[in-house]
């Protein structure tokens, strides 16, 4: 089992998830197995209906599988209670959503602090310190007290990424994180993800956009609830270069 000293962050085996739609049983995931090690930047792709959202919900401990095993950082998730899963999400997972989901009329720093508010072991001083550090990591150290509605989409998504990083998660789960952004801003966010990856973060990026596979270190493609390909990309393209080549939009 011991391949080098890499930590296995995610290990799923024979994962199944069935839904009942009316009287019909829908198999959203059929026997999915894979392992994700520390430091990987994995894109999970698939058309709508391929089961990628279901997989994301399962990986994010928002849902439990019908059958199969899911070990997150060595801990089995499928046997956890609702509250245990909430605590796991709080301590080990960082979510980035397509529509940012920032609290309205709230400053960046308060938005970023939010996950730590649900962790009573973190004092208010530490909370602030972590939040500032996370905002610095996404390049927003000059926007600490800007309210969410005073910022552009790209900045809002950066705040959301800072919020995902503030609890120092074992994995960052991004769900179409560039879906609402224009091309240039999308690439700036991709640059940020690549930078985080370079600093050792484990990232899962769920998207339907096949172009993005070129920028990750591994690509998993789902179709009809099954993995149809799982390829390692040893030489990911630099998003920064593309970003620099894009014209600055000024009209």
């Amino acid at each position, binding site marked *: 089992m011991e391949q080098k000293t890499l930590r296995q962050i995610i290990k799923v085996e024979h994962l199944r998830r069935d839904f009942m739609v009316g009287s019909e049983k829908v198999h959203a995931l059929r026997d999915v197995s894979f392992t994700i090690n520390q430091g990987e930047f994995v894109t999970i792709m698939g058309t709508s209906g391929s089961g990628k959202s279901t997989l994301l919900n399962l990986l994010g401990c928002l849902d439990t599988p019908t059958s199969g095993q899911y070990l997150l950082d060595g801990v089995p998730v499928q046997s956890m209670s609702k*509250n245990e899963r*909430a605590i796991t999400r709080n301590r080990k997972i960082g979510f980035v959503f397509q529509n940012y989901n920032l609290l309205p009329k709230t400053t960046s720093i308060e938005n970023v602090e939010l996950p730590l508010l649900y962790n009573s072991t973190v004092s208010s001083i530490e909370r602030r310190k972590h939040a500032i550090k996370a905002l610095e990591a996404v390049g927003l150290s000059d926007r600490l007290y800007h309210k969410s509605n005073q910022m552009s989409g790209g900045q809002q998504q950066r705040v959301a990424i800072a919020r995902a990083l503030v*609890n120092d998660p074992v994995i960052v789960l991004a769900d179409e994180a560039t879906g609402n952004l224009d091309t240039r801003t999308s690439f700036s966010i991709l640059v940020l993800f690549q930078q985080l990856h370079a600093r050792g973060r484990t990232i899962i990026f769920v998207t339907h956009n096949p172009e993005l596979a070129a920028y990750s270190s591994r690509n998993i493609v789902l179709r009809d609830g099954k993995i149809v390909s799982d390829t390692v990309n040893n030489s990911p393209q630099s998003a920064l270069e593309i970003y620099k080549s894009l014209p600055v939009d000024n009209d």
Partner: protein
Amino acid sequence: MNFGNLLKIALKALNNNKLRCFLTMLGIIIGVASVITMLAIGQGSKNSIKAQISEMGSNMIMIHPGNMQRGGVRQSADDMQTLQVEDYQTILEQAKYISAVSPSVNSAGQFINGNNNYPSTIYGITPDYLDIRKVKIQDGIMFSEQDIKSAAKVCLLGKTVIDNLFPNGEDPVGRVVRFNKIPFTVIGTLEPKGTNSMGMDQDDVVLAPYTTIMKRVLAIDYIQSLFASAKDESLTDQAIDEVTGILRANHKLKDNADDDFTIRSQQELSQMMNSTSDMMTMLLACIAGISLLVGGIGIMNIMYVSVTERTREIGLRMSIGARGVDILSQFLIEAIIISVTGGIIGVIIGTIASWLVNAIAHWPVAIQIYSVILSFAVCTVTGIFFGWYPAQKAANLDPIEAIRYE
């Protein structure tokens, strides 16, 4: 999740919706303020009735002849001649729970002074009567025991009678007025008492020795009624029992015979009036309570809308690690903050409103501590009760659906 953090989250959420928060509070504010004001008005009127009654002598006992049957026919109390001077003397000598007693005989008629005349009632009494009825002498003196023995033709006038007989403001003391055809020397005047709680003019009165009225005016040998004072308000019942015993013995009534007299106490009157004002207070409190309930439903309504409106926010909170209980607590705390803050403001406004009612409408008010505590408690309970359902709804949302809610 500690409480401080929850409080911070709830306050922040309320702060983001100040207007809605205030409008929700308004229901509670109006509810609490009206409960406090209504109860203050109710209690105020009760207190003023009580004060008026105690002004008339709260430990007063009235004994009238009556309850007598002759051959199965009940007789009018006016025809009764069962109370005798002897009864008065026995009560005076024997009753331990009675501090003062006075017979009373009265006659209505025309008072004449020169070319002024006025119809009033002359009461034949003893000096004890002043104590019993809490009447004070303003000018002059009370008549003496000697005057009673000699059935002296002296009298004391109430203010209304003075105003009518001496319209030019002369001093009535020492003057002679005629009652029907009998001349009475005015030896004193009575302090004005105003109208009583039933609207009767307590100053439309003339006092004279009872012997004078019995012998010279009415020519009767019985007394019409007795007024007495129990030593203390709380001893009224014992005093009544004692007087009953004395009178039954005096009248030689058999054990199975009905009393040939009736005893009434001021206590009964005060109980009757209290029950009236209690009913009014209850009615006011009910109306106010209903408005508090409506306020509570307002909270539920707004919280419910708020949960739907903030579904995405709830989904986000859950996805970053809020447990169901955290969400439940947040919404519950929001509801409680709204209701308790509304309660505090309501108490302040209620107090001011009560004070205004007193200052402007001159209604007596008495703010009840219990009403403040009660409405405050009701507020908090309302907050929890009406906040619970929406909070429960929020806590039971599925994070997967909530986060993608549009």
